[in-house]
C-alpha cells in the first residue's frame, strides 16, 4: 500500500475488511450458483442470465481489486491508475470489437438455421424454361 499504517490500523480496520471481502466473495458465489440451479436462464432468457452472472462476478472482482489488491489506497498513484485505466479501456474495446462483430451476424443471405446435421426438407426441383 502506498500509505504506511500503524499496527492498530491493520488489526482493527484492515483485517475486518478482509473478512468483509471474503464474505462478499462467498456470498456472490452462492448467489450465482443458486440462481443457476433455480434455472434463471430458462426463466429470464440466456442473455439476461449471462448479464446477471457477470454482474455478480464484476462485484466480486471489484471487491478483490479494491481491498485485496489495495486499490483503495493506491488508486491515487498515477502509475497504477493510468495502467489500470488503459487496460480496462483496451479490454472493453477488444471485447466490443469481437463480440460486436457477432451481434451483426444476421446478414442478407445468412440463414437463421445453418446446422449441417439437421435434416433439410427436400425441395421440389424448379422447372427450367427451355
Amino acid at each position, binding site marked *: 500500500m*502506498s500509505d504506511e*499504517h500503524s*499496527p492498530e490500523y*491493520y*488489526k482493527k480496520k*484492515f*483485517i475486518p475488511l*478482509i*473478512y468483509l*471481502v*471474503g464474505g462478499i*466473495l*462467498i456470498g456472490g*458465489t452462492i448467489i*450465482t*450458483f443458486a440462481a*443457476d*440451479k433455480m434455472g434463471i*436462464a*430458462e426463466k429470464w*432468457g*440466456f442473455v439476461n*442470465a*449471462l448479464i446477471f*452472472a*457477470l454482474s*455478480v*462476478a464484476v462485484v*466480486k*472482482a471489484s471487491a*478483490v*481489486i479494491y481491498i*485485496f*489488491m*489495495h486499490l483503495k489506497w*493506491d488508486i491515487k*498513484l*498515477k*502509475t*497504477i491508475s493510468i*495502467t*489500470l485505466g*488503459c*487496460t480496462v479501456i*483496451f*479490454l472493453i474495446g*477488444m*471485447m466490443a470489437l*469481437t*463480440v460486436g*462483430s*457477432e*451481434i451483426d*451476424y444476421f446478414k442478407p443471405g445468412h440463414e437463421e*438455421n*445453418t*446446422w449441417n*446435421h*439437421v*435434416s433439410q426438407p427436400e425441395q421440389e426441383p424448379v422447372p427450367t424454361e427451355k
Partner: protein
Amino acid sequence: MEIPYYDKERPDTGLYNGKAGIWLFLASEVMLFGALFSAYVLLRVGAEPGTWSMGLMNQWVGAFNTLILIASSATIVMAWVCLKLNDWKGFRKWKWATVVFAFIFLIVKWSYEWPAKFTHYDVTFVSNESAAKVYTDVLGPKFDEKQSDVWQKRFDPLKKDKEQPSATQVKLKDKPLDGHIVGYIDSEGVKHKVGAAWGIPFWSHAFAWRHDRKNIEKEKDKSIRYDEDGRPVYKEGHFRDTFRDKDIKAIILVPAHGTWDTKEKHANSGTVKYAEAKHDGGHAHSDEHGHTVTIAREDISRLSSYEPAHSTFFATYYTLTGLHALHVLGGILVMLYHLLPVSRRVYEKNPVQFTNRIEITGLFWHFVDLVWIFLFPILYLM
C-alpha cells in the same frame, strides 16, 4: 551494484519498482486472458443451437474450487498483514494455508476433473437404424421421448417445452449416447476389460480413446503396416484410431450418470433408470460395472472422449482452465520459495524488501483469483 528502489518508493511513480513491474505484468495478463475470453464469448454466442455442450460440467466441483480459491486469496492477504505486524510465525501459517488451498485446487482440477472428462465418451452412429438399435438396448423400444429429452437438456436446454424443440430436428444418428467404456471385444471375439487402476472409478475406464469413421475414410494411403506386436505403424496422413490400435470389433459401454437420469446415481451403482429397458424389451446387460451396452464398431460413426479435440467447447475449456492452472502452479512455486529458510534470511536482513515481495506475490495471486471469478460462471454455469 545495488538495485534501486526495491524497498523505497520512486519519487516519480510513488511505487517501489517491483510493484510497478507487477502492475504492468498484470496489465499484459489481462490482455492475454481478455483475448481468450473474447474468443470464448464469440464462439459461445455464435454457436448454433445443439452444438454447445452446456450440460457436461460438474457445477458442484466448479463451485467447490471457486470457494477454495477465494479462501486462498484471503489467506495470502493475512500472510502479508502478519509481516506488516512483524509476526513471522503468523506469516508462515497463512502462507502454508494458501499453498495447501492452491494444491487442493490443482489436485481437484488435474486428478479428478480432467481425468473424469478424458474417460467420458460421446458415441454417434453411422445410421439412424444403428442408433435406434443401440438406444433400444439402453432405453427400450420406446426410447424416443427419453432420448430427445436428454439431448434437449444437454445441448439446447433453453428451447425446452417450446412448440418445436430442436431435438426433433436433429437426426437420431447424430444424437450422442454418452458413457464410460469398461471393456471391448476384439476381432477374435475375446472380451477384454480396460483400466482398473488402483480401484479408482474413473481410472477403471478407457482413457482418451478415439475413432472417427470420416477420418479413416479420408485417408489416402490405406495400407497400414503392423509391427511385430500387431500394432499399426502410422505414416503421415494417417489418423490415430483406437479401434485399429487395439483391433476392436465392439465396445462395452456404461451409459453415464447425470445424463440418462439426473435423479439417479452413477451407472456403476446399477440403479440408473435405463435398467428398466430390460423389462421393456431392451437388451441392456448387467455385470460388475452395472448395466452395460455392447456397441459394434460398424455401428459407430465417431467415438470421442471429452478431450480438447472433442468439440469447440472443450478446446476452449481446456485452453482457459489449463492456462489458469499453469498460473496457479507458478504461484505455488513462488510461495514455496518464500517458505524456504533462505527467505527467512532475506526477511531478517531487510524486512521491508521481503514484505514487498509478499505483496507482489499477493497481487499476482489475486489476479489468478480474479480470472477464476469470471471463468466459473461462463464455463460452468452458462
